[in-house]
């Protein structure tokens, strides 16, 4: 009996290490493919080079870095406030029945594949922008709007948790002092939930940066630094997705290197959030 139990425990331990092992494998293999070219070209010229023409030995990813940054900031600017507002709605304002409808609806939004978002973007949003605002339609703006919608579930659910974690007594004290519910929310609850809401926004940002399919369908994929919201651009993820299908040799290595940049950035982001969120959870 005891020997069998010992074996089972070891087997389960091996299984439990699968997540960490996978993560390590991902890091190792992606780095192994991408790091050599980054070192050969020089980190500076890779990250800050203006020109991306892999077939002509030009490996600068600056245009994509700018593209990713603009799109992500745009997504945060649109999805962040809307998401926090919705989470406040769900946590504080919505009556039970309404919340019971809205919450699953938001989860459903999270389940819609990104290609569907991209498709709706390209058939509806892009022409809308082209005809009523300007530019070719395929633009940073289109991508920012789509991404803003896509990060809503993430922002809403984590913000909602943060708001609901604020002790009820805070709100009651504020109301007892004569605040309107809205004042209680803005002056007491939201500040108290600030770490959690920040985490929600950071995680939303991580999601936006990592998003691929929806973005490449609406952003135009022009390898140029965008100068306005209406310009087409290209993101780091888009670069990989568009060219991976036919890249080989150095070109492929460069795409992996792009992946390395993405991976490192998101890992750092996630680790920071996890450490801070973890500490907050322990403290409370």
């Amino acid at each position, binding site marked *: 009996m005891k020997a069998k139990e010992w074996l089972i425990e070891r087997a389960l331990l091996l299984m439990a290490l699968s997540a960490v092992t996978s993560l390590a494998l991902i890091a190792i293999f992606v780095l192994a493919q991408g790091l050599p070219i980054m070192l050969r070209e020089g980190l500076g010229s890779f990250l800050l080079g203006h020109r991306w023409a892999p077939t002509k030995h030009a490996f600068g990813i600056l245009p994509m870095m700018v593209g990713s940054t603009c799109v992500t900031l745009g997504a945060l600017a649109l999805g962040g406030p*809307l998401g926090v507002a919705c989470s406040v709605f769900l946590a504080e304002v919505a009556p039970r029945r309404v919340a019971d409808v809205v919450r699953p609806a938001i989860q459903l939004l999270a389940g819609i594949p990104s290609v569907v978002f991209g498709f709706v973007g390209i058939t509806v949003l892009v022409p809308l922008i082209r005809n009523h605002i300007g530019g070719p339609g395929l633009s940073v703006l289109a991508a920012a709007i789509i991404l803003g919608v896509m990060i809503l579930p993430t922002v809403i659910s984590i913000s909602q948790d943060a708001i609901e974690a604020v002790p009820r007594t805070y709100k009651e004290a504020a109301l007892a002092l004569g605040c309107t519910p809205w004042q209680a929310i803005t002056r007491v609850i939201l500040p108290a939930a600030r770490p959690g809401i920040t985490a929600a926004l950071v995680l939303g940002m991580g999601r936006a940066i990592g998003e691929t399919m929806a973005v490449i369908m609406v952003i135009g994929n022009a390898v140029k630094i965008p100068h306005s919201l209406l310009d087409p651009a290209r993101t780091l993820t888009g670069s990989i997705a568009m060219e991976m299908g036919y890249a080989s040799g150095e070109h492929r290595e460069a795409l992996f290197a792009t*992946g390395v940049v993405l991976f490192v950035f998101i890992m750092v982001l996630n680790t920071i959030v996890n450490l801070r969120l973890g500490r907050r959870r322990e403290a409370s």
Partner: protein
Amino acid sequence: MRRVNPEVTHRAASVGLWLSAGLALAVLAYIIGLVLVRGLPAVTPHFLLASPERMGRAGGIFPTIVGTLFVTTVALLVATPLGVGTAIYLTEYARIGRLAAVIRFGAECLAGVPSIIFGLFGFIFFVITLQLGWSVLSGGLTLAVMVLPTIMRTAEEAIKAVPASYREVSYSMGATTWQTVTRVVVPAALPGIVTGIVLAVGRSVGETAATLFTAGASLRLPTSLLSPTRTMAVHFYILAREGLSETHAYGTAAVLVVLILAINTLANWLMLRFRAKTQ
């Protein structure tokens, strides 16, 4: 010093909040509505059961349905035991706190990796290094790694929710840890665990970037684990990107969305049953 009556601000803010929620719902309804309205008419039995013709401009999407099914099944067959096993280990066996923390941290990080990176990894690891080629197996294994954190998290939650008294009773009767786990804990946690699996299915079905570079884009009906295949999501993407057929694209999207709607509803229903049982 207050120029605007706080009551007025409160009312305005309430309206604003309701509008926000309404906006989010409206966007959701619009997207689903658009896809279903334009796509459902194209979804005929022929569409579902026939093979694609002319690169997908005509015919049906049957091979992609089969491909999606195969790839998702492989992913679940691999990720479920690993995920549930991890959850069991973390809750019932882990003695050293640090090891458990490392495992959880690994899972959290894995959950944050973007799907394109999974695509890159799956390509270089499964397709090239392990020489599995573009195949159901490559795609399924890549997806397995991707959904592993989802299953792990929900399984752990479900197992933790099992009342401690059940375990105490089992141990007091001389059961070993494994007997307690298999005969009492896991059966009691089953609805929650299944919810996690259902959620993982939802993610797998909608995934594109990870499967495009691992399962491939072949339109042929997959016949074995090593056959290349195209999932519905990938097919939809290609149709849309190449502008091959708007109706067929919408049709594929409609099938995808209906499938995901069904999966989500199932998951929600299971979660309600799970909550009811533990309360």
